[in-house]
């Protein structure tokens, strides 16, 4: 493999090259710490090894009898104390700077979910854009060791976050299910995404390029498979991207009152299923016993529609098993499609075999 551009390099020994001032400060702080620690380390252990060599019995060393000295005790309490202050002071400045998320040019909400990221552009140019971002590495590369792995193996997504260069971008993090954590090492940014709470962080990228990170808080089985990719572009390119994205979204937006045929819904539903549901319920619809329930043969899937619409919209907690709520993530059409898909796939032959988007819209009340 080659280096991942904007991600880790092969045999990389230090932090990724910083592209924000904060990341640069962190880099320098680390170097500073490393130097102090190395100096102390060398000093302390040269004394120790000198002693080990010189004061050994086999060389005829006789043991001295001193065993106390208040002076040296005080010295080696005070000196480290001063050193520690020398470590804390420069760090304090950076801590304060990292926390200052005010006056952002662009605000983006990043929502962690098992196992993908959702982004909403809340404020600034591009307001209103929203999309999901999932792992783009083909599954065979993960499970089949004979397949060659991409350079950006596990570090590539279908929809990248795009931001303009030299603009202060505030990232608001939250989560739908469990804690995730949003990070881009090159930016010196890492912020946990906590369900039910919002937290924020910021960066101002100073170099055009694509930068990569991975979810860094254990979030269940596919924790290793939810990368974060941010593309930093020039202002002009950013405006272009915003326009394109807006058009794309308008084209994709489905009219919830359109009436679909069952086959249309099934085809659409299969896509929704593979993007959102397979991770737990599996392609076979059999789930994982004890962890994720089967849909194949499930009474809710084969019963009246209303119950299933409710479960999809609002989620469900059944002991340790938790179905997330999808109402904020999927559109009416997508929910209708995926329900229709599950009702007609595997061995399922539900009596009520089709759900129209309008019904989902109505159930949202």
């Amino acid at each position, binding site marked *: 493999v080659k280096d991942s551009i904007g991600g880790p390099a092969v045999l990389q020994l230090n932090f990724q090259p910083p592209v924000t001032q904060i990341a640069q400060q962190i880099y320098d702080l680390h170097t500073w710490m490393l130097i102090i620690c190395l100096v102390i380390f060398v000093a302390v252990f040269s004394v120790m090894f000198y002693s080990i060599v010189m004061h050994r019995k086999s060389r005829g060393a006789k043991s001295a009898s001193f065993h106390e000295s208040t002076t040296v005790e005080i010295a080696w309490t005070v000196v480290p104390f001063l050193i520690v202050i020398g470590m804390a002071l420069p760090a304090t400045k950076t801590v304060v700077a990292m926390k200052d998320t005010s006056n952002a040019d662009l605000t983006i*909400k990043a929502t962690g979910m098992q196992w993908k990221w959702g982004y909403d552009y*809340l404020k600034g140019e591009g307001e209103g854009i929203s999309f999901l971002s999932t792992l783009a590495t083909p599954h065979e590369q993960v499970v089949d060791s004979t397949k060659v792995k991409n350079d950006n193996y596990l570090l590539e997504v279908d929809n990248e976050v795009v931001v303009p260069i030299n603009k202060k971008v505030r990232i*608001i993090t*939250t989560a739908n299910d469990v804690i995730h954590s949003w990070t881009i090492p090159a930016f010196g940014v890492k912020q946990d995404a906590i369900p*039910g*709470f*919002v937290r*924020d962080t910021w960066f101002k990228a100073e170099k055009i390029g694509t930068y990569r990170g991975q979810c860094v808080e254990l979030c269940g089985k596919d924790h290793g498979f939810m990368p974060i990719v941010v593309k930093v572009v020039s202002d002009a390119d950013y405006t272009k991207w915003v326009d394109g994205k807006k058009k794309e979204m308008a084209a994709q937006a489905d009219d919830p009152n359109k009436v679909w045929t069952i086959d249309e819904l099934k085809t659409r539903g299969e896509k929704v299923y593979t993007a959102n549901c397979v991770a737990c319920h599996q392609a076979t619809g059999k789930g994982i016993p004890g962890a994720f329930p089967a849909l194949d043969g499930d009474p809710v899937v084969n019963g009246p529609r209303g119950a299933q619409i409710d479960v999809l919209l609002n989620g469900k907690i059944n*002991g*340790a098993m938790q179905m997330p709520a999808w109402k904020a993530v999927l559109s009416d059409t997508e929910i209708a499609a995926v329900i229709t898909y599950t009702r007609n796939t595997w061995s399922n032959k539900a009596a009520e075999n089709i759900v129209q988007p309008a019904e989902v819209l109505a159930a949202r009340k």
Partner: protein
Amino acid sequence: MSAQQANVPYYFVPGPSKWPVLAGVALLVTMLGAAGWVNSIALAPELCVIGILGLLVVLYKWFGDAIHESESGMYNARIDTSFRWSMSWFIFSEVMFFAAFFGALFYARSISMPWLADLDHKILWPDFAAHWGNAGPAGTIETFRTMGPFPIPTINTALLLTSGVTLTISHHALRAGHRGKTALWLAATVLLGATFMCFQAAEYMEAYQEYNLRLTSGIYGSTFFLLTGFHGFHVTIGAIMLSVVLYRVLKGHFTPDNHFAFEGAAWYWHFVDVVWLGLYVVVYWL
């Protein structure tokens, strides 16, 4: 005593005993049962109950041995000191246990709640207002009423405070060598404790039926029931300890200057008392 002392080793070490390992087995059965129980596995509740019963039997036997040793004069002053140290630190560990729950209440109320209601969180919970006793920001929890200090908690405070006094009277009687009086006041203490528990049960019933306040009532219900419930559990334990002591008083086990079992149980009871005062203020008044 002193005649026996010559025969007593410097520090008595009991010989091999089968109770600890049996208690371990019983606890394993209990916990396996409990783990099954919370997951609604058939027969697990039975297993859990069997484990607990087994544990009780073993502890009964074990303490029986200890009492026998104590009665046959194996325990000297040094062992008494050991008991004092150990009981103090045990109570300290219980203090820390409660501290975790008090800490949870403090954190949820003074840190999380204002957070959930602040400006930033409006994007998630637009209409959440921070007042304690809310039904959670998601609105998925049925509304409920919160618990005030009147009347039951205040009565209960009085009960527990009184029980502290009766227990002290009993202790003085014991030190003065009045066995009858000791037993009487001790019995009164146990009775007060039992009354406390009855009132608490009534309070819980009221909470569920009249206030619609449940264990599932968001963080308020969670902290309310966990703190008071855990305390109630300790009152029960304390009352059991005192009952055993009462039984031993009646049997004439204690002398005016050698009765650590009594004192240990009394310390515990006072500790439970103090925790209640904390609860009374923090849970009911604030």
